């Protein structure tokens, strides 16, 4: 029944948005929707037995287990922050004429629907259903990218749609394979993950390998893994920053989530012996491509977007190690990366508003006097950057540290290569920050930069997320750790 509550809240928010005429009210509806989602999630975590059994009466398509609720928790928190951020950000877009007033309603309708669809995707037990919801997230988020209706945005959105949807069709074929495999098992055919994981050990490895390879194509494209990452930088850089945060913090997780689920099934079969090195290879290639693309990058949002690609690569490596500890820290990294990346996109969004269109073309950021003009955003980028390159006490440090430790146990050479690539990525980020943030325009040139007045609603999410990251990183709260280790046991690692 809880699922109905999610749907009902969304419907209510939709009604409010459709009926209201001013931006603030629409935005408030979105914030409230996300907040209620957070509360519902917290309620499930605290007061319900997880995995929730048969809570959606008469349907075998949905379920809630620890992994699902974990992802939903991350998603709802980021959505709440992003909705709050959008309050000031979208207002600015409307004022500068980049977003038409008439598109506002469409924007917020898509926004609310996106949250619902993502939550439903994480709660789907049936993999085909998960596929449909994942596909819908592509379409809706593409709509959010294209909403600015500049040609580049439409280009980016279309590239995103075609790459993601075309690859997702392969995933669907893979699911059909999986279904066919499950029909040979004692329990007649089913695509429900809970059934599949139970019978996984008897599945024929050959077909399993084929099925995983096909499924991997689409989900890799969703989560921006090499060689399907090409849509990601353009889409993330062109989207409104509030949307970029969601794309990077939540939507990439949808792909990774699917990969984890399916890999958990493969892990039960001998096919894992071939699949794991494959994942490792793709992970390292992804990190490598991202690191070398970051080096010459002149655009802040693209830089941050490539950093997401890099982190997806790390997640894949963590999954490929496939020890319980590696999986544990990989899940931790998912959370840490999402929160950090969202805050980074929020900060770069402020800088984008400050500098875009005044001096620079869209491909190069001309940032100067940043500490005088936007001190919060500057510190947000610096702290977020430190967090994303895994310095203690930020949480990514712990996850990357332990993943690398585990990787060293697998192969020392791979570890060295990966560390080298991570170093390059960190260097690229640091180089960008140092060169750009130290630029100060000479005396007398002060007048030509119009100060962008940052609304409070855009500042709160950054501060909140950074504080949250610090708290997690310093305290490493025990219940949370316990929670993640339950996911690991549920995935049967």
């Amino acid at each position, binding site marked *: 029944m809880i699922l109905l509550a999610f749907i009902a809240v969304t419907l209510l928010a939709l009604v409010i948005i459709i009926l209201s005429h001013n931006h603030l009210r629409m935005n408030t509806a979105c914030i409230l929707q996300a907040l209620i989602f957070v509360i519902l999630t917290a309620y499930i975590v605290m007061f319900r037995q997880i995995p929730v059994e048969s809570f959606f009466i008469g349907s075998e398509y949905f379920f809630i287990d620890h992994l699902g609720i974990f992802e939903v928790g991350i998603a709802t928190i980021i959505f709440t922050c992003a909705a709050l951020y959008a309050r000031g950000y979208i207002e600015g877009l409307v004022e500068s004429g980049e977003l038409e007033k008439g598109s506002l309603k469409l924007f917020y309708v898509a926004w609310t629907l996106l949250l619902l669809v993502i939550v439903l995707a994480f709660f789907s037990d*049936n993999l085909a*259903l998960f596929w*449909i919801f994942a596909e819908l997230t592509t379409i809706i988020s593409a709509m959010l990218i294209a909403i600015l*209706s500049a*040609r580049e945005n*439409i280009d980016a959105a279309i590239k995103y749609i075609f790459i993601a949807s075309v690859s997702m069709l392969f995933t669907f074929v893979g699911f*059909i394979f999986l*279904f066919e495999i499950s029909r040979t098992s004692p329990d007649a055919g089913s695509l429900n993950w809970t059934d599949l994981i139970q019978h996984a050990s008897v599945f024929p490895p*050959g077909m399993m390998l084929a099925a995983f390879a096909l499924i991997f194509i689409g989900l890799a494209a969703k989560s921006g893994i090499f060689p399907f990452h090409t849509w990601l930088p353009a889409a993330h850089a062109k989207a409104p920053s509030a949307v970029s945060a969601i794309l990077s913090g939540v939507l990439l997780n949808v792909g990774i989530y699917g990969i984890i689920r399916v890999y958990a099934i493969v892990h039960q079969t001998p096919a894992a012996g071939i699949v794991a090195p494959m994942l490792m290879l793709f992970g390292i290639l992804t990190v490598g491509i991202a690191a070398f693309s970051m080096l010459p990058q002149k655009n802040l949002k693209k830089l941050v977007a490539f950093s997401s690609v890099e982190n997806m690569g790390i997640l894949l490596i963590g999954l490929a190690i496939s020890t319980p500890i590696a999986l544990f820290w990989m899940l931790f990294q998912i959370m840490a990366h999402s929160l950090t990346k969202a805050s980074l996109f929020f900060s770069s969004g402020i800088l984008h508003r400050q500098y875009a269109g005044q001096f620079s073309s869209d491909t190069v950021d001309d940032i100067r006097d940043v500490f005088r003009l936007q001190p919060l955003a500057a510190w947000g980028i610096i702290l977020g950057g430190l967090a994303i390159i895994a310095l203690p006490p930020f949480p990514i440090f712990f996850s990357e540290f332990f993943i690398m430790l585990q990787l060293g146990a697998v192969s020392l050479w791979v570890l060295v290569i990966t560390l080298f690539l991570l170093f390059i990525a960190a260097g690229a980020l640091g180089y960008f920050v140092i060169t750009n943030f130290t630029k100060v325009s000479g005396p007398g040139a002060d007048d030509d930069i119009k100060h962008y007045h940052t609304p409070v609603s855009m500042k709160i999410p950054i501060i909140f997320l950074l504080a949250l990251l610090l708290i997690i990183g310093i305290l490493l709260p025990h219940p949370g750790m316990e929670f993640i280790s339950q996911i690991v046991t549920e995935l049967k690692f």
Partner: protein
Amino acid sequence: MIDTSTIEGIIRILFVGIIITAAYIISTRNLLSVVSVYAVQSLTLVFIALALYSLEGSLVLLAIAIITFFSKVLIIPYFITTIQERIRIKRDIEFHFLNPTTSLLISMVLMLVIYMVLSRIMQGTPARESLFFFGAVLGISLMLMGMMVTFSRKRVITKALGFLSMENGVLLFGLFVTELPFIIEFLIIIDLIILVLLTTILSVGIDSTLEDYHQRLHRFHLWEEPGEDS
């Protein structure tokens, strides 16, 4: 009741129809005819589903035939034609990477490869009967051919058609290999319709030759990259 071998013969003929339409979609440069050929291809799929229905008697197949008919034979082609009239583009002569001839030759090789791979993978599964196996091979081939269309054309609207033809391939594969619950098939169709709506509307922005749309875009300073021509 017609006997099984007749129906299997009919299905084989319909397979050929699908191959012909796929080859046509890959190699033609005329946008208008691509849409109608796509409709014909979907119609062929409907007939295949009906033939399978008369063979197996499962109601899901009948339902699939019906929704496929309404969505892919009627609604989607109609919608795309309307958009095409709006953007006034009739020919698609720009290609990335592959021109139609090469794509045709490549797709031939692909079919062979798929045949070999599938026959290795599907050894010993119930689907390894000749007719159903051919259906599966054809489904995947159609999918890959659609993918080549999607990635080798520059016009968004042809890309969308390539994607749709890919989806037809998936449907064909699904029909012959296994049987999914109806609700899933239905949701996929919904998903497809939304996707087509979105991409075609966006394609008005990209493919459009209408002057006013460009002027509207010019107003935003976001669109001033050098070398952008359209």
